[in-house]
């Protein structure tokens, strides 16, 4: 087997007394869709925040594409080739869809402040190039209708698409999707499932996603990781993990307390 794209080793973080992630270890292989499941508060989003360097790990290492990124500043993560979406949508609310997607291109910019201030021919050429790249994403996700609309007036389902689009515009090697189907209706969830397979097959992007909808998980995942109380309790194919006794117990247990 080839070298893993993402290696997480003994990763841990504590918030006060809460061990949100407690010694998590896993590998993500290039080209796969890797899904993290677990009850609410298991630490899934925290793992994303650790990998995208929004949080500082208390212990452990994160190696991406052969580079140790455990201590890398957050704004350099995108340049490594990691893009993400957020559980509760973090869009640029008072900007248009187009502008949001163009921010996704930020890591690919070559020109500097002076070129921008004077809007030199170089800056113009680059803008047109980014604009073309973003149009590919707009076509891919069928966002043509919303191109020049401001985010503030968009329905939830479209916001989710725009956020996915913004991450895709970055042309990442690794895409982190935090609950891509939450808040979507059945049709939109199905659409999302097609896009995730397309992202893997057509664009060749490795996907790590957090998801609760088990049919979506089964449809698109190559491997699944189950997390509970910040600890990895099972890794394997979707059916293996769902049959795992500890996973069953974690879900039943969480229902007891819920």
């Amino acid at each position, binding site marked *: 087997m080839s070298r893993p794209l993402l290696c997480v080793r003994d990763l841990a973080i504590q918030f006060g007394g809460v061990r949100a992630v407690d010694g998590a270890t896993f590998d993500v292989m290039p080209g796969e869709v890797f899904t993290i499941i677990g009850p609410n508060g298991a630490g899934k989003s925290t793992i994303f925040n650790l990998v995208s360097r929004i949080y500082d790990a208390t212990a452990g290492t994160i190696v991406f594409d052969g580079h140790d990124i455990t201590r890398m500043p957050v704004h350099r993560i995108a340049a490594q080739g990691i893009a993400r979406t957020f559980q509760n949508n973090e869009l640029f609310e008072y900007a248009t869809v187009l502008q949001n997607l163009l921010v996704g291109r930020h890591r690919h910019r070559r020109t500097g402040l002076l070129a921008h201030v004077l*809007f030199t021919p170089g800056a113009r050429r680059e803008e*047109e190039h980014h604009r073309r790249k973003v149009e590919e994403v707009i076509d891919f996700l069928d966002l043509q209708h919303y191109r020049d609309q401001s985010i503030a007036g968009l329905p939830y389902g479209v*916001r989710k698409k725009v956020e996915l689009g913004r991450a895709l515009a970055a042309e990442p090697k690794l895409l982190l999707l935090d609950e891509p189907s939450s808040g979507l209706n059945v049709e939109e969830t199905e659409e999302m499932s097609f896009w995730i397979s397309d992202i893997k097959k057509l664009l060749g992007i490795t996907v790590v996603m957090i998801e609760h909808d088990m049919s979506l998980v089964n449809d698109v995942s190559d491997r699944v990781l189950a997390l509970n109380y910040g600890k990895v309790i099972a890794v394997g194919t979707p059916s293996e993990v769902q049959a795992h006794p500890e996973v069953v117990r974690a879900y039943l247990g969480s229902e007891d307390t819920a």
Partner: protein
Amino acid sequence: MRFLLRTSYGQDIRLFPFGGAPALWTGLALWAAIVGGLNVASLPLVREGWLALAAGYALVFGLVLSRWGGAAFWYGLLGVAVIVAPMLVGTYFVGQLTFVFVYAIAGVGLVILLGLAGQISLGHAAFFACGAYVAAILNAEGWDILVSLPAAVLVSAVLGVVIGLPALRMTGIYLGFATYAFAFIVEEILARWDSVTNGTLGIAVGSPVLGYESWGWQAVLETEVELYFLALALFVGTLVVGLNVQRSPTGRAMMAIRDSETAAASMGVNLAVTKTTAFALSAAMAGLAGALYGHVLHFISPEQFTILLSINLLVMMIVGGLGAMHGAVFGAVFLVMMPQAISALKGAMPPAEGLPEVLAFLVSLPSAPGFEAGIYGLIIILFIIFEPMGLHGLWLKVKTWFRLFPLYKKGMFKRQKSYMASERNR
């Protein structure tokens, strides 16, 4: 509904989205038409005969453009208006317009800092002062504006980086106070550094000079009209820079940190660099405005650059609107015209003697101390409640009303309740 066919993506990144070239041509054509027309009427403005010939052609050209140019025609007309204004209005009004440009230059900087990057500054008076003093001192040392203005801009930008440092750790009202504290220090330095700034007595500022006697070529810009055109040219330059920032990755990065720092950082935006850049650019523009301000007033002293100026600049932006560069101009007009309006109001009041008590009170109100500040406060409150997008927002509504007439629907601009991220990821 208007459908746009996209022929190239260049269309999305034009300086003026409606098409800068038609505006430019319309403007030039109309200018030629008017000057030519005046020439025909034998006004001693321009004596070249060929302009008269151009006039008829230009008028037709301009009208044709207006058919498909729309906004271009009106911006072109505006361009002509500001160019011919000094020939048509008195020197007093020319002076007032010059101040509009001065404040609008600082306004463009505030649109970038507040509107685009979402960072507040109560320290803009310091940048204004810095630009004014640097330009005045270099002018006194015999340097021309090609040296003194860039120097004023540069020093102000550096000061902007320093005063913007708290922005790397604070937001909102805390940032406001921190920037105010820095500005206060600058104000103190100006008042106490006697050997350079002449302390609280202030310094006289010479007229801006272009070129040097030793070159055998020198122009001293002393008349109102000359200063007007200097301010106009610098404003246009600043506006172009502002629009360029807005449409480039730098501006988008600023917009990104305004709306979500987490998402911006995750897309590769360096928060520290972006905030610092916004402060530096905004300070540079305020510094340029300050330099001009000194040259126009011919006198500067520390008490012109207190917190009151910073607040006035913010008021200007609240009233003008932060959403677009238009807001800077609308706000500047407001800032210059407001004191005039208030003093006109004072003059128009009948004497209070012999009136019933309530009326006498109302009549004496405009001359009461603090009336001006009270009016400003009232205007800010009214704008925040009824028109958060400022005069620019109002303007957009009026424009839409005319375009859609008689189909305009009531409640079209009602603010919609929108989805809010209930729980942020940090």
